[in-house]
């Protein structure tokens, strides 16, 4: 039986991620307790807001090392995904350092509005159990001003001015830049797939 835990990193989308899981029949408690998080089968790191307060919250609750040492599937959502990287240009913030790249801000201009807000299409770059049933050109809902580059960690990418990582994986750490809890059937499928991941992660 899955035991999904949401890390309380102070993000404001905690409620909606929790409701999205409930629609899938999973009641995930919100926790900042290290033991409860370590004992979970699946861990989700949500978060809307800014990188610096997001990291500060993880430091304050003593969870930085806890998250880094997790071996079960972990899913970062939006800011939660960004925190998996090394560094964010937002507030010049050192992040968890699990994925070797840095977040850069979109540069507005030429009809490119920042934040990148709305439904944009995904390009599947690497097949993954996380993306089972989700095809290239599926639409997901994005709201963000900073983006991760593409690289070996990229499972799916998206174009907005340039190409950036929309879904990532490094070892057992996964992330979605878009909001699965607000991406209709595509988002529900991604969450369902995540809950279905088994250790060891392929």
């Amino acid at each position, binding site marked *: 039986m899955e035991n999904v835990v949401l890390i309380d990193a102070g993000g404001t989308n905690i*409620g909606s991620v929790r*409701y999205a899981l409930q629609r899938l029949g999973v009641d995930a408690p919100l926790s900042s307790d290290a033991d409860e998080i370590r004992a979970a089968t699946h861990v989700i790191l949500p978060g809307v807001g800014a990188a610096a307060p997001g990291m500060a919250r993880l430091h304050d609750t003593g969870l930085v090392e806890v998250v880094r040492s997790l071996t079960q599937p972990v899913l970062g959502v939006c800011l939660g995904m960004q925190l998996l990287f090394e560094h964010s240009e937002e507030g010049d913030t050192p992040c968890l350092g699990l994925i070797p790249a840095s977040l850069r801000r979109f540069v507005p201009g030429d009809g490119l509005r*920042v*934040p990148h807000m*709305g439904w944009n299409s995904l390009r599947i770059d690497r097949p993954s159990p996380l993306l089972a049933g989700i095809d290239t050109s599926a639409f997901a809902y994005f*709201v963000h001003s900073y983006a991760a580059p593409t690289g070996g960690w990229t499972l799916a990418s998206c174009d907005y001015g340039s190409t950036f990582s929309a879904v990532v994986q490094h070892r057992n750490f996964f992330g979605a830049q878009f909001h699965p809890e*607000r991406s209709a059937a595509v*988002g529900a499928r991604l969450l369902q797939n995540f809950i279905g991941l088994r250790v060891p992660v392929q």
Partner: protein
Amino acid sequence: MLTRRIIPCLDVKDGKVVKGVRFRDHVEMGDIVDLAQRYRDEGADELVFYDITASPEQRSVDRDWVARVARVIDIPFCVAGGIRSVEDARAVLHAGADKVSVNSPALERPGLIDELAGAFGVQCVVVGVDSLRDDDGEWRVRQYSGDPTRTRALARRTLAWIEEVQARGAGEIVLNCMGSDGVRAGYDLEQLCAARALCKVPMIASGGAGAVEHFHEVFRIADVDGALAASVFHSGAIAIPVLKTFLRGENIPVRP
């Protein structure tokens, strides 16, 4: 490719969805959650809920329905109405709203926009602007437009206010052109084009949709990121799937 958004707006009064013409004479349209689900099923890209009685009555938005909507809805939604502080916004966002929209309270105290952006990030902060052309030809902002007996004309120029709110941290701007609202004769393209030229964040057009062609022209001519409408959707005059098929045929990218 980033698609253009179709956004039904649900004006909420005393916990029910209502719609008036030119902001007056409100008629009850139905239950909030029922309508929200209907629009989601029809392919709405986002929903906006305006508690139109909250600001004039100096109270914060009633939050019970925010959580009820958040439980069932899997598309983004924004809540507006009487959000006067970081704490008000936090309660609405924690209840499950994706964005908050501020209008009258931001006019009373523009620093509210900075505070919200600092606390939650600009992506959560929408600034609603109600605007009307005055006799001298200048567009100016209106306050408390939810209640005609309290609506106030301000000296503030609409275009200057649009520049200011971006500098303060608005992540999106909804420009409601009151002169065209509810009369279904088309969006105010002239005003929207003038605002678009100054607006570097996503901009949503509001007020005047009456036919599918109006959506086409507001995307093509005013280059807005989203188009908001209420009565044409509530009345069934325009069905969202029909609208999206039409827009796709006109090469406007929309989500299926």
